[in-house]
């Protein structure tokens, strides 16, 4: 496929105004599916959590999962939405082999939650209020695997496999109103918005919120228009952008791609586009028009949902604090500077650090490990930090071993490598790899004396008060000990030797 031409990002923003809109699908972590009693579990053998209902067998009928409604209302409330007094499900009719009934049961013109808002902080610290149009319930489709083609797409595949375990898993789709005025912060704002949604649903406990598993999926609508033009530009919808970094990149890419086309006098085609993480580009999917005819009509097999006011208020009372308030509280609690804190938020590490602190680490140690070494390794492996196989508890344990003098920073990094390699918990790795700090003064003194014997003038310099001369000795001793010595203790011992003790 020919690489598409892009306009320079800054130049694009000088000429065009960006309008984005985001649709986020959140998979709820209810025990059972939306309309049947099948288990809602990720990763089971294909087609083991299925029944006549989610397989769309003749005669089967849906029965609404009350917990899914409860969780959807919670999401609506957390997004400051109105909750509908009554809401019907509708059928969205289209044929696709992953859709058992060949219609999706979804809320159409009567979403459970509507007219909400959420404050999102852009990278510059500027706060945008994103208006939420609606949050509605629907069921997920099955999962298709296309076999035999080179692309893994349906085109060119020899055959396709369908796993209906995911069919009927409850989803909440959260749709924003168009977001204007984000300017060059639009890509980061899009990512920050999804991050906030993720944080909300995770803190509500209604979703596992793992993007790599598709628990949170984002479709990004992007359009641009020449500055000063009132009419909105033609939008594209980039589907299933499934990491925060990709969202940012995909939005940026679309801005640059559309800007190039418009500057050439080429019209933007309203279409679905696919994001390719490997080449950092979107490609054309199927053309989409507003006339896509899903023949919606009210689902006759279900009665309207009518949550009582009392129930809604009970649910409201159980809501955790809002992300913005939580952030403020945590920043104060941890005593981070503006810069440190924004770094944590932008790296999407709030929960990890919070959990690490809760597991006993100091806030600074938690921050240092997550935004430092772990982030560095994740980056070098091209992974999300959240995908790294290490728990906050393990990080807190490593930090604890340093505090108690059992590990040096260098040894601790080695322990971290061991944890990430799946060798076990930090304490296990310390003993398995023999990484304990040598705290036996006898062994240290032996090494110090050996070094001092090679550098006789050093002792004299230290006695003269030139303490920095000790540095060379410490370095040599550390090297001789293979790093497994506590540098501070070595320094103490060197100074003791110099003062003739």
């Amino acid at each position: 496929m020919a690489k598409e031409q892009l306009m320079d990002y800054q130049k694009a923003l000088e000429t065009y105004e960006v309008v984005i809109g985001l649709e986020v699908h959140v998979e709820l972590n209810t025990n059972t599916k939306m309309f049947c009693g099948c288990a809602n579990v990720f990763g089971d053998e294909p087609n083991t959590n299925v029944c006549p209902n989610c397989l769309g067998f003749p005669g089967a009928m849906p029965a609404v999962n009350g917990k899914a409604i409860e969780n959807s209302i919670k999401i609506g409330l957390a997004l400051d939405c109105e909750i509908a007094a009554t809401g019907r499900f509708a059928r969205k009719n289209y044929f696709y082999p992953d859709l058992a009934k060949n219609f999706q049961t979804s809320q159409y013109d009567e979403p459970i939650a509507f007219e909400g808002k959420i404050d999102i902080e852009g990278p510059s610290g500027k706060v945008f209020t994103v208006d939420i149009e609606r949050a509605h319930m629907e069921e997920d489709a099955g999962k298709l695997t296309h076999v035999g083609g080179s692309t893994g797409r349906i085109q060119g595949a020899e055959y396709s496999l369908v796993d209906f375990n995911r069919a009927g898993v409850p989803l909440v789709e959260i749709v924003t109103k168009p977001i204007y005025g984000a300017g060059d912060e639009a890509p980061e704002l899009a990512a920050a918005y999804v991050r906030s949604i993720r944080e909300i649903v995770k803190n509500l406990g209604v979703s596992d919120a793992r993007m790599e598993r598709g628990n949170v999926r984002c479709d990004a609508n992007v359009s641009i228009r020449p500055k000063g033009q009132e009419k909105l530009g033609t939008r594209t919808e980039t589907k299933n952008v499934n990491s925060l970094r990709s969202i940012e990149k995909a939005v940026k890419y679309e801005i640059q791609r559309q800007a190039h086309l418009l500057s050439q006098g080429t019209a933007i085609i309203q279409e679905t586009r696919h994001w390719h993480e490997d080449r950092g580009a979107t490609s054309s999917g199927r053309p989409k028009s507003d006339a896509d005819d899903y023949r919606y009509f009210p689902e006759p097999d279900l009665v309207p949902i009518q949550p009582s006011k009392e129930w809604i208020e009970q649910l409201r009372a159980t809501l955790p604090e809002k992300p913005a308030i939580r952030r403020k509280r945590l920043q104060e609690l941890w005593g981070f500077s503006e810069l440190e804190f924004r770094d944590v938020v932008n790296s999407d590490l709030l929960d990890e650090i919070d959990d690490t602190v809760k597991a006993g680490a100091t806030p600074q140690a938690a921050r240092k490990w997550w935004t430092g070494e772990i982030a560095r390794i994740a980056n070098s492996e091209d992974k999300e930090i959240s995908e790294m196989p290490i728990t906050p508890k393990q990080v807190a344990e490593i930090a604890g071993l340093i505090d108690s003098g059992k590990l040096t920073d260098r040894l601790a990094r080695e322990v971290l490598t061991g944890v990430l390699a799946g060798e076990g918990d930090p304490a296990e790795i310390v003993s398995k790899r023999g990484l304990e700090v040598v705290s036996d003064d006898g062994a240290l003194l032996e090494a110090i004396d050996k070094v001092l014997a090679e550098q006789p003038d050093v002792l004299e310099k230290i006695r003269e008060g030139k303490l920095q001369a000790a540095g060379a000795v410490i370095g040599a001793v550390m090297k001789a000990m293979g790093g497994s010595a506590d540098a501070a203790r070595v320094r103490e011992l060197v100074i003791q030797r110099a003062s003739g003790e």
Partner: protein
Amino acid sequence: MSLISRPASELAAMLQSKEISSVELTSQQLANIDKLNPKINSYLTVTHEIALAQAKQVDELRAKGEKLSALAGIPIAVKDNLTTIAIETTAGSKILKGWIPPYNATVVEKILANRMPILGKTNMDEFAMGSSTENSAYGPSLNPWDLSRTPGGSGGGSSSAVSSMQAPIAIGSDTGGSIRFPAAVTGTVGVKPTYGAVSRYGLIALGSSLDQIGPVARNVMDAAMLQDAIAGHDDMDATSLPESLGSMTEAAKNDSVKGLKIGIIKELTGEGFQAGVSERFQEALDLLVAAGAEVVEVSCPSFQYAIAAYYLIQPAEASSNLARFDSVRFGLRVMPEGPATVEKVMAATREAGFGPEVKRRIILGTYALSSGYYDAYYGSAQKVRTLIQVDLAKAFEKADVLVSPTAPTTAFKLGEKQEDPLAMYLNDIATIPANLAGIPGMSLPVGLAKEDNLPVGIQFLAPAREDATLYKVGAVLEKLLENKWTKSMMDFAPELKVN
């Protein structure tokens, strides 16, 4: 009187007193099926072994003194649009030929819990689309009163089975009259309960907001006992009523209509109705009046739009309900010519698997739901539905039950209306409003039309949830007629010559 010509309520008493065994009854029933079914085509599948095994089991339980339900041991026929584990279920369609469901419809579960041996699955118009069984992919059923005529549809398999003593009772489903019309033209009793009174779980849906399962029987008491056996709330059907509607068996013991107000629906009498039908209808009313009922005239002007509205709503829902027949997970799969894509396989399967009436309605329904047409068609039809409900509510302020002939004519000849879908649709003019409004309706035989000596049915309608009223008035009228005739309706039936 042979054993199998007796009504279910009598047979139930004989089983309870151990005068007969279920095996004895079921064997005789199966023997008659083996004799008649090859000609009449009431059953698509006859389940000899299953029925006899169930009969044997219920006899053993009774011998042990186990407490059994009222209908335990009474064999029953089940319409082929209800799913049955281990028994082929086709809904009269080629697209489901050979399909063995992995689950039972709730009604089937109830039949099994009541220990009623299942004789087999009865013929029907494909996916219940039709009024004659001529749309069945497996050929029409014949009317035992005149083998050249239809036993009605879509439930002509059940109505012909019950009226030819191939089953004492049967299960039907009624979307626009599919229980009541076949009952009317075969001299049997058919009831469409209030929407939601009987669980639809496992009923292969036609129009989900209209479909209702109900009893087919040879008298009112039998129908009442069967409705009691299959009714009740079901968590698997979100539209099933939370509350019980009371005992229909008790209601069917009623013996008085004194003070009962009967509303004659002006729009469903007179012009357009066969003279012999109107005559029998009037005679039945006269009997009720003589017994102390009061007759008033009511008007439901919106009924003139009922058929139009019905033929938008039902095909619309059907077009969506039938989308699942795509060859991916069950049923027929037809490979297209040339390279296969999933769309081509789906299209080839649906082209080969669906009959012309099903295709007609899928196209109608798809069109009615299309964006730009939705408001004009589906939207307007829903408004008509509301108007019909309003008209009926007003009528029920004046009357306890509403009456009309069940159908404009007696059984028509097979083939007579097959080329004229509109004429076929008009046949349901009296039965459709009950489905649109969700209210219960009963068709009861009131004798033979003098022009053709074929059965005529009267239809009673009651307000939603007041199914008992139908059984109360039905039971009285049935007794009045039998007293007048000095025999039962079925005794009028001609002897069947099937060779």
